[in-house]
């Protein structure tokens, strides 16, 4: 979970790291009036994505007119698809030097890495690429609770070596690195970054920016920390993009769902295309099934097949959750066909089929939109699932007449998808909605 800068700075302060004096957070231009502003001030757009500075999300204002102007413009800004809802206002600090510090996870070994550079304040990836000698890195293979004096001194030595003017703050640098490391470990972060760490004219070290990503898996035991920075510990923040209506719905029910269409609510369907909703089972196959639909569409259907979603229905969902997965896709205006696969490992074919049939019966009775379902089930509890399906088809043939589930693996899933798409086009043609080329 990514934290907003002002949240991250609250954590920094708890660990003894100095940050610029906060003036306030505003949600509209009128909020500006109540604040006592001591210019110059920094105005920063609160978004959970990098590259804010370049996109115009960080500005300095020297007087109230400038501040109003900047805030007005910033509220209209959209940075990489994120709408700006809040601005952080803080007092500007004098800058003598800018340093880069971070604690990150090595993507290869998953060990902790301490990174420092005397060339802070700019895009650190550029520095890493063009001047690798400007970056100091230390991998810690034993996951220590605290950072040793030895390592922090070494980092400080490096920084002073690159910029001798830092010699007078060497000890403070060492302390800041240790504090940052403690903040990282105690908050169970994935990334903790200060860029820049400002050395002021009077040799103060101030974290002017803060990037903090918490580990979603440890949030349950970080409740006191989250509460102390004003976050409800029980609700995971959707921090990767602006949520669509359906993503928000799925979030409430409790399964991962992503719209692949840019604007699903007011989506304009192209007539000759088939839009396929996916209930794939498992996050990995959730990703792969999107590829399969696209590949099959390209090979056999002139590229006219569009997968509309990612879903992770794995991990043994409950009956009602399975039903909600199908409801969501059948309520989705784009869906022409639902393709589903249940390869029961930890999750049960039996619960899956019961949930699916429950959804179809409910929809039939309450006259909601029915969408053909194509799929396959194999694995855990298959025998019980099959018995349920056979019985249900006898008991309620009408709601289940467009349910096509292959029991067993006589056909690989790619072929089931192909059959489903073929059927989807046929139905679409019959109903005169679309035309196959």
């Amino acid at each position: 979970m990514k934290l907003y800068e002002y949240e991250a700075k609250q954590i920094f302060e708890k660990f003894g790291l100095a940050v610029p004096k906060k003036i306030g957070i505003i949600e509209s231009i009128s909020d500006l009036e109540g604040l006592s502003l001591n210019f110059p001030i920094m105005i920063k757009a609160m978004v959970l994505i990098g590259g804010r500075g370049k996109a115009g999300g960080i500005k300095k204002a020297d007087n109230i007119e400038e501040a109003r102007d900047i805030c007005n413009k910033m509220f209209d800004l959209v940075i990489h698809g994120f709408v700006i809802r809040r601005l952080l206002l803080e007092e500007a600090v004098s800058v003598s030097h800018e340093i880069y510090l971070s604690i990150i996870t090595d993507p290869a070994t998953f060990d902790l890495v301490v990174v420092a550079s005397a060339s802070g304040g700019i895009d650190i990836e550029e520095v890493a690429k063009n001047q690798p000698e400007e970056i100091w890195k230390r991998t810690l293979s034993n996951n220590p609770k605290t950072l040793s004096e030895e390592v922090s001194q070494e980092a400080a030595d490096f920084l002073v070596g690159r910029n001798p003017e830092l010699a007078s703050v060497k000890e403070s640098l060492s302390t800041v690195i240790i504090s940052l490391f403690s903040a990282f470990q105690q908050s169970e972060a994935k990334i903790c970054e200060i860029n820049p760490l400002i050395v002021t004219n009077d040799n103060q070290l101030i974290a002017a920016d803060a990037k903090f990503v918490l580990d979603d898996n440890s949030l349950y035991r970080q409740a006191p920390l989250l509460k102390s920075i004003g976050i409800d510990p029980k609700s995971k923040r959707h921090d990767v993009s602006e949520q669509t209506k359906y993503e928000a719905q799925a979030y409430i029910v409790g399964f991962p769902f992503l719209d692949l269409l840019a604007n699903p609510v007011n989506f304009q369907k192209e007539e000759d295309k088939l839009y396929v909703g996916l209930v794939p089972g498992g996050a990995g196959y959730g990703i792969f099934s999107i590829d399969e639909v696209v590949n099959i569409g390209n090979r056999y259907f002139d590229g006219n097949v569009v997968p509309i979603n990612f879903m992770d229905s794995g991990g043994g969902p409950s009956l009602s959750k399975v039903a909600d997965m199908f409801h969501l896709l059948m309520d989705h205006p784009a869906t022409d066909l639902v393709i589903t696969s249940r390869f029961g490992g930890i999750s049960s074919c039996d619960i899956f089929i019961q949930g699916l049939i429950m959804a179809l019966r409910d929809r039939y009775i309450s006259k909601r939109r029915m969408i053909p379902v194509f799929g396959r089930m194999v694995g855990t509890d298959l025998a019980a699932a099959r018995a349920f399906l056979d019985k249900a088809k006898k008991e309620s043939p009408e709601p289940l007449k467009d349910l096509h589930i292959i029991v067993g693996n006589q056909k690989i899933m790619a072929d089931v998808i192909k059959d489903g798409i073929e059927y989807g086009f046929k139905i679409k043609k019959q109903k005169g909605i679309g035309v196959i080329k």
Partner: protein
Amino acid sequence: MTIEKLPAEQGLLYYFIKQVRPELAEKITETKTIETMIVGLGRQGTRHAQLMMEYGTNVTCGVAKGKGGTLVHERIPVYESAQDAMEKHPNIAVASIWRHYSTAKDATIEVIRAGIPIVVLISEFIPLKDVRDILVEARKHKTILFGGNTPGIIFPPEGIKVGMLPDIFQAELVGDIIGPKGVTILSRSGAILYHLSDALASAGIAQNGVLGVGGDGAIGSRFVDLVSRIMFYENTDLVVIAGEIGGMQEELLAQDMLAHPEKYPKPLVALISGANAPEGKTMGHAGAVISPGQKFGTYESKREVLEQAGVTVVNHQHDLIEAVKTKLDRSYFDVERYYNKMQKKWDEKPPEKIWGTLITNVMPNNLIIRGYPLQDIIANKGLLETSYLLQVGEFPDESTLVELEKIAVDAARQPFVNHNAVPTSLDISKMLGTCLLLDTRLSNYVNLTSDVAEVAAFSLGRMLRYLAILLGNIDMIENAGEEDISFSKMIYFGLVGEEQPDPLKVKLLESMLTACVDHGITPPSAQATLVLASTRASFEVAMSAGLQAITDVHGGAGQRAAGFFLSIAKKAREENIKLDEATFELIRDTIKAGKRVEGLGHRIHTQDPRRDVLWQLAEEAGYAKECVAISKIVSDVFYRIRGMNLPINVDGVIAAIVADMKLDPKLAKAIFVFGRTAGLAAHYYEEISTQPQMRRLAFDKAVYKGSSIREIK
């Protein structure tokens, strides 16, 4: 015909073990089996332990905090810690961990430290900091760690699976012999792993190992740690990896292949998912996040470097099949035959939900307790020995028996302060049930004692005291001064109240008690106790409920039967007619009056297995007189009147002997209730130590899974 599995020491799992623990591998060549352990016995762990065993995995034991000393699936011992388990089972080579993410770290580290070489970490959502701690430990111990968030690992030729993978994987078949050859598959995602194997099987490509490396962002053994190793396993012809966007595992592997081509002597095909994933959106797996501008983690970055390293990269099931077929140019089994095998799985009937008991096998005309026919037990063993057998599964050795005698005798001697609150006028069952509930000494003893055989012995002693109070023989118990008095003699004092008893009478009485100890889970008394046990009611409450289910309808017919036999004998004497004549007349009159003839008929047995041995013992002791003679003909006489076969039952036989011993007919029921105490105690403890609480108790779905038939030595 049955198809032999590949011997464990020829398979890929063994190959892994040998690389990291050569001494353990040596052991496996002797034991011919790879022992595995299951850590965490919640709903999933317990269920999949069963599925693993059904597949063929040797699940040696389990580890679950707070469940140490119990059994899972009726026979797998459970320990408090991995260390405890390893002390008893030092050859465990694989552990699977099914703990909740909040406790997965400690469990995993414990297992790694115990020295187990292969660890399969099923748990998902483990905090990253905990994963790092696990990795530090795993590196230190050279552990091969699959996961977290893995569906497990499966080795089709050896028939071993550790994890939750469905049974769809196919080994090489050479004629009817299972072969070791095939491709080895590694995948980050579970469902992709299944779809991948499925696709290859459809083309006749066998899998000798299917390994989930884990779907989380940070995992134990990575592609780069495993692929080269696997390529040096002689029976692997090709390796398939299933990667996906996020992380840099695939890039690392490719870089290693470029730097050290000699480590990769066999073909590799990579299926990479996420070609059409939108940038900047998270896709479930912690690993599958792409942020703009990264030089690794995208579909393109992976594809590019893998192809540079000479790997065929695919993104579609049919392309995978084509790539593997082209590289191998062979198949490993007949696809039709594979589908026929799978078809059987699709067409299976839903399994019945059976459960197991190890105590008593109840079959028509046979009662087998812990493997011993009850008639043999009655003839050769006493009540305390039989009680011990019921609880523990074996007969006690001599010193244990001495100890049990002391406990039972001592229990009979300790005062029961509340006995005045229990009216002796009550029905025997109700009276005993009430005593059990009021007896604070018993509940204290149960709370303080963990040995179930001792609890059963103590309960028998207390039951004797209640009965002695009821029957007015309590003074005999109080005054039994002998220091080392036997429990058998104590029983005789308490039930009969006769001084200087004939030793043969003492033995005969005890034999009748032993005959009543148990009848499996079929009678209502055992079922009542089980219902209470499943709610985790206390021992004495569950026992009380069970005993109170013994009524005139169930087990309590003896008292009336004894009276009936006595009246037949009296009639024959007074009217000077033959016994069968007197029997005929009285049965006829009874039936005319619309009454039941007691002591006849059984729900299960047509010839009660306890009948002949009791008659014979009565004969030998010299107490087979008129009533026993009547008991031998009563069934035939009944047939002459009603044309129905109703065999004499154990209540009837005991009633006849009690009558011939000139004992109070009330004793017939007392014997039944008293003896049954031992069996009910066994059922109580079996339920609480092997079954989940509040389970749905389907008595007709119980299956005897205990010892097979054996002889008393």
